[in-house]
């Protein structure tokens, strides 16, 4: 976890992130008129040029791996903040970039105890890679030392 004293410092750090970092952030929302499944399926469809059936299968597998297969047909406005976060996280994981930064999780996960929620997701057997959290210093107490 990386903590920042204020917004400017955090934004400056985000600005320096390179293209090989996948980011989950409130300023990178889902496409509102697509379901969670379609939002995730966009990545294999457009980046790896799989057909629609295979892209949808991969997207569903990702949601299954995160333990939230049930959110697949939901669109952004129909999701709870936690469900929306899962969809954004699934999309970021689908990018298969070496680093994943969860930027200000408190802004997205305001209806759950987010450090526990994220730890629970990261501990799932299918999850690999490095997850980093960017948060403000005053939230540090929420995370177990």
């Amino acid at each position: 976890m990386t903590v920042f004293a204020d917004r400017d410092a955090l934004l400056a750090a985000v600005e320096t992130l390179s293209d090989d970092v996948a980011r989950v952030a409130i300023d990178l929302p889902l496409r509102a008129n697509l379901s969670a499944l379609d939002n995730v399926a966009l990545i294999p469809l457009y980046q790896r040029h799989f057909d629609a059936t295979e892209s949808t299968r991969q997207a569903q597998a990702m949601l299954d791996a995160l333990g939230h297969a049930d959110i697949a047909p939901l669109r952004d406005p129909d999701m709870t903040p936690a469900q929306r976060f899962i969809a954004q996280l699934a999309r970021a994981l689908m990018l298969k970039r070496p680093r994943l930064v969860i930027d200000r999780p408190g802004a997205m996960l305001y209806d759950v105890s987010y450090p526990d929620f994220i730890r629970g997701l990261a501990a799932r057997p299918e999850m690999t890679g490095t997850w980093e959290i960017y948060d403000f210093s005053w939230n540090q107490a929420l995370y177990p030392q």
Partner: protein
Amino acid sequence: MNFLAASIESLGAKVTGWFTVGYGMFAFLGRALVLLLDRATWNRATFDVVIKQVYFTAVQILHVFLGYALVISWLMISIILSTARDFGLTEFATEMTIRVLVLELLPFLTALFIALRSGSAINTEVALMRVNNELDALAHCKVPPMQFEFLPRLIGGVVSVVALASLAGLLALLLAYLSIYGLTMAGFEAFTRTVAKIFDFRIMAGLAVKCALFGLAVTLIPVTAGLETPKKLFMVPVSVLRGMMRVFFAIVAIEVLSLALKYI
């Protein structure tokens, strides 16, 4: 003197603004055309989105549109026939019906129909996508918005306007025949001769180009107006207002140009 300077300044700002908007629109169209010619664009994903756009723009409203075209055509044909009879010009009724309805009125009304239904929706959606950072999110995921969001809308608009105007034209021709000759084959030869005389290659090509330009206007202008929206939610209605005004002026300009080229 101050008033004069302020007026000139304001006029200059407006003219510069128009040029900027025009340049932005044509630059966007240029990018879209380049992408259209790129073989890599034509993958299954883009094709699926194009099909979806044609469905939402044309197929979904087909029954409403054909009903509307039927009523308008029937009214116009009745007015033309009754006026032609009053002035003893019945032999020109077929030609007048085709020229007024099929070549001018129906393509124009089709463009207005699509502009009001789909153009306004496209403008609002693109503006909201911009305000909500959805375009930035797509860019972060390396999903090209032009290929995924904009190009299919442009193609969908052109295909839809051309297809709907053609269908409405065929319906009007059928209705005109039935109104003039009734349920008999007696006038078929004379009617088809008139149709063939009017629809020479130049007129057909002109009609196709006009419909394609209408289709482009009702999608390209809303997309570019949406992309110009400042990232403030309250600017979305302003963006739609501006976009739809531009669409209206563009449709009228295309129609006036087409009339001038044909008849002057």
